[in-house]
């Protein structure tokens, strides 16, 4: 049953059934957000290998893939919340800080929001490619927002913004999203399909 059929069926159901279904969907969404945010924190806690080439780290940062995949599966609100809550929880649980009134977390939320705006069929290569591309676009916007927040709200140095935030975070993030997002997205779908079966 595709999405349109699903909507049609939903419209034909009684108000009680619709309410029940809405509740169920909200519950699933909350579960995705909570688990996604926690997974984000756990992955951020694990030291990941990387190498530095002229101050730019190259390696994988798997945590940000979670934002993209949750957004792809559950839509923009879930994507935004995973990004936002994941970053806020990471700050609170690991370092005991809330950075710049959680504005950097909002920037990560925006990535989830952007990725979640499109529809995906994670069994298809083209859709996985779309996920990777939108993740990269969302991440670039996230980092640009982070830099703007750093420069105009946190007021840190321009060299810090460009040399130690923008470029290093981009070099880590872009390769991660290009390579890992399609892989994790597909594997996630496989797991869900096998659970459903």
């Amino acid at each position, binding site marked *: 049953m595709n999405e349109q059929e699903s909507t049609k069926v939903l419209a034909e159901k009684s108000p009680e059934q619709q309410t029940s279904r809405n509740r169920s969907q909200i519950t699933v969404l909350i579960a995705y957000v909570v688990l996604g945010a926690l997974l984000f924190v756990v992955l*951020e806690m694990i*030291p990941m*290998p*990387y*190498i*530095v080439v*002229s*101050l730019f*780290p*190259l*390696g*994988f940062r798997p945590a940000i893939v979670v934002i993209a995949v949750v957004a792809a599966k559950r839509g923009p609100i879930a994507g935004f919340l995973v990004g936002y809550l994941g*970053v806020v929880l*990471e*700050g609170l649980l*690991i*370092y*005991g*800080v809330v*950075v*710049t009134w959680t504005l*950097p977390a909002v920037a990560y939320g925006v990535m989830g929001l952007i990725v979640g705006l499109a529809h995906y069929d994670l069994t298809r*290569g*083209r859709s*996985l*490619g779309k996920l*990777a591309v939108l993740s990269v676009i969302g991440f670039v916007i996230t980092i640009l927002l*982070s830099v703007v927040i*750093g420069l105009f709200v*946190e*007021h*840190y*140095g*321009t*060299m*810090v913004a460009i040399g*130690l*935030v923008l470029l*290093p*975070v981009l070099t880590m993030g872009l*390769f991660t999203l*290009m*390579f*890992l*997002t*399609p*892989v994790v997205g*597909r594997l996630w779908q496989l797991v869900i399909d096998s659970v459903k079966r």
Partner: protein
Amino acid sequence: MRFAVRNNKLFIAALVLGVVFGGMTFGNLPVTQYTLSVQTIDGETFNFADYPVLTHEELALFNYINELVTGQGYGSWEGWNAGEAFHGLLHYVLAFMAYATAEVFETTSGYRSDLYQNFAYSLIKKMNTTVEVYNTTSIQYTEWMHPSYNFVDYYWPEAGNASGLYVGGFRGPANIMWTAHYALMMALYERNFWTGEMNDELSWFVSDWNNTLTTDGYGNSKDGGIFNCGLIPCEPYIVFVQCNSIPIYCTVLYDNMFGSGYFESGMWDEGLDFINNDMQDQYGLFADGYYVMEPFNYTQPLPEALPQTFPGLSLDRYIRDGRPKVSSYCNAWSETFLEYVQENETKHDYPIFMEQFARDVANDQMYMMDSYNNPSGFGVYDMLGTLFTMALAKQQGDFATLARLVNFLYEPYNRVWSADGRQMYFDTSSFVGFLQVPLAFGYLWAHAPVNIRDLADSRPSAFWNYPYISQADDDGIWVYQAVWDNEKNAFILNVRADTAATLTFSNFDHVPTAYAGGVSLGALEQVGAQYTLTLSPGTYNIVIV
């Protein structure tokens, strides 16, 4: 199979590329190569986690700087990346390297073979190189006689008036930024190794400071000393809180070691009063410099700015409205070294300092601005402020801040291990090569489980009778833990041997027996009054009783 491949082309391509990319970028993972076991011997339980420990990386970093210090002549700077632009920083590098490694030595206080002692000794000698012997590679040249300083002859109260009190000279009372560090390096050497070799020279410096602070320089008692503020200048016209925090700390350590009463006599009372009341910014933090007299050829800043007064607080360079110059490195350094003598001030100032100078970069990273009057700037002094704040944060037990500062400073660099795996450093060559050595010892003072404050206490006299490792095949071992537990009368040794190695113990008054995993390894072999333990390659948690 073909169908599956055809339908998952992108997935497979991304997976393969991801594996290749991940393989190419596999590096820089932290190394943990020791274990902390719990052993019970004759009903007594020894939990290795209860004793201070050095990590494998810390020891590898020490090996790296040891190669630079003891592996070459005192006047050589090969491998230090010490370009001409950094000549004025070399003596600081030596001094703070000595303080950071003193924390390492204290962590494994039962490991006192030649390795650590030779290192500390060589650092002191390197700090005291003269033009007469080492010409332009000497510290006397780089710190004092370099043409960009030309600190040669100075008089008080007018710098150029030879009829006044002579205060010039590399070792004189207007160069506290060298004399204090040199003396403290000697004091820590005696604290850690107790040879007596440095005592006379150390005593001379402490006595000289006392004269500077309590007399007019001609032998007459005078409040505020020669320079009227109870502090000692450098550069040589300015008194700095940070530079004076070193002799204050050194005086206390000297008193603690030798039972003298310089500090109790009030030698630094005027100076402490001056820095706590007069050398303050609007937040109650330390101001960065106070001119005691006008420098030669001083040029006032821009005409529209308020003029610098003499004597007077050094004025801020960014907002020229008369507010004092401030810096994070000044405050972090000062608070770290002054905490022992004025704990309440440091505890009070630390959160204010963090609020005014710290900048959040991300959850996992932050740095210290050089000056809160110039938040958009970033340069060497911001990095210095961050480096010094690591020591302060550790001393305050603020480990979350410490971790974030460490992440900021160290993540842009690769860990580079030597071919034999004995040495490691952070490769800063793509940024500022000179940072490589400071970051190496900076990592030690950020992570060693001993603080600067702890080192101001001398060791109890009984300490020198505790059993300790007096000789070892240092080149083939990693000593993570080595401490005498005086309550349980046992020596705790956590060691890895790369090759067969022998450790010689002194001060045991009986034939000791080594245990590993609670099982006896046998008695140590007696050689004269000492006992040796021979280890095959491997990692050991050993209790010797």
